[in-house]
C-alpha cells in the first residue's frame, strides 16, 4: 500500500492534470464568437500537428524522421492510414536496427 505522502502527491498531480484537460473546455464558454481567441483556435490544429511531428522527430532521431517521411509518402500515394502507419513504423524499425549496429 502506498504511503500517504505518495497518495497525496499522486492525487494533487491527477487533479492538476484533469484541471488542464477540463479547463480549456469550460473556459471556452467565455470566449466570444469572432474573437481573436476563437480564430486562433480554428487555425491552430494544422500548425500544432506539424510542430508535434517536428519535436517528436527531433527527440527520437533519424529513425523517426525516416519513418515519418515514409508514412507521409505512403499516405500521399495510397490515402490509407493503415498502409502509411505500417510502412512508416517498419521503416523506422529498420532504420533503427541499421543505425544501432
Amino acid at each position, binding site marked *: 500500500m502506498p504511503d500517504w505522502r505518495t497518495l497525496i502527491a499522486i492525487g494533487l498531480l491527477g487533479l492538476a*492534470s484533469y484541471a488542464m484537460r477540463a479547463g480549456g473546455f469550460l473556459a471556452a464558454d467565455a470566449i466570444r464568437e469572432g474573437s481573436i481567441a476563437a480564430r486562433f483556435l480554428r487555425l491552430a490544429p494544422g500548425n500544432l*500537428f*506539424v510542430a508535434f511531428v517536428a*519535436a517528436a*522527430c527531433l527527440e527520437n532521431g533519424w529513425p523517426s524522421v525516416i*519513418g515519418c517521411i515514409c508514412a507521409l509518402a505512403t499516405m500521399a500515394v495510397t490515402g490509407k492510414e493503415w498502409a502509411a502507419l505500417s510502412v512508416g513504423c517498419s521503416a523506422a524499425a529498420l532504420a533503427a536496427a541499421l543505425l544501432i549496429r
Partner: protein
Amino acid sequence: MPMAIISTDRPMFKPALTRVAFRRGFVAALPFIVSNGMAGVVMGVAYKGLGLGLAAAVLFSLVVYSATAQAVTLGMWTLSPPVAAMVVACIATNARYLVMGAHLHQLFGRLRRRVMLPIMFLLADASWVMTTADAERNGPDAGYLLGASVPMAIGWIAGTGLGYELPLKPGGPLAIAAALLPAAFVVTLLPTQWRGRKTVWPWGLSVTVALLISRLVGPNWAMLIGGGFGTAISMLRGDDA
C-alpha cells in the same frame, strides 16, 4: 453575453455521442495499445527504479495519465516529494490541454457538461488529433473521442503495470518503432489540414520554432509554442480555416 466559439460561417453540425462513432474511434486507435503500452512499460520500469510500489506506479498512470507530466515529475521525485513544485511542473507540461479542450468545445460545446467532462479525463494528444480529423470527415461525435481514448488509456496503464513486473530494456528497434506511432499517425492527418500554398509559411515557422523550443527548452513545450507561432502568422496574414 459571452458565447461559445462556434463560427457562423462554417457548416453547423449537431454534435452527437453515438456507439457507431465510439466503435470507429476504438478500432482506429487500437494500434495505440501497443505504442502506449511500450511507453507505459518504460514508465513502469522507471517507477520501479524509484522504489515506488506496483500499486503506486499503476495509480500514477491511472490518475495523472500524462506521459509528459509523469516523466517530468519522475525526475523530481525524492523520499519527501516536493509536491508544490511537481504540481507546477504538471500544469506547465499539460498546459497544451487547455488549447485542445477549448478547441473541442467548438465541436462538442452543445453537449451536456456531465457527459463531456468525464470524457475529458481521458483526453490525450493523439485522441484529440484523431477526433479533430474525424470531425472534419464525419461531423463532431464525442463517441469517437471516447472510443479513441480508451485503447490509449488501456495501453498506458496496463503497460506501466507490465513494465513494473517485466523489466525490459528500452531503446531497441521495436521500441523506437512503437514510439514513432503517435507522430506517424499525426503525419497521416496532415493532408486534411493542408490549405494550399498559404499553409507553407505558417507550417514552416511552426516546425522551426518547435525544433528550437525542443532543443533549448524541452519537448513538452515544442508543440504548443511552435504551433502557436505558426497560428499567429496565419492570423496576421488574415487566413481563416
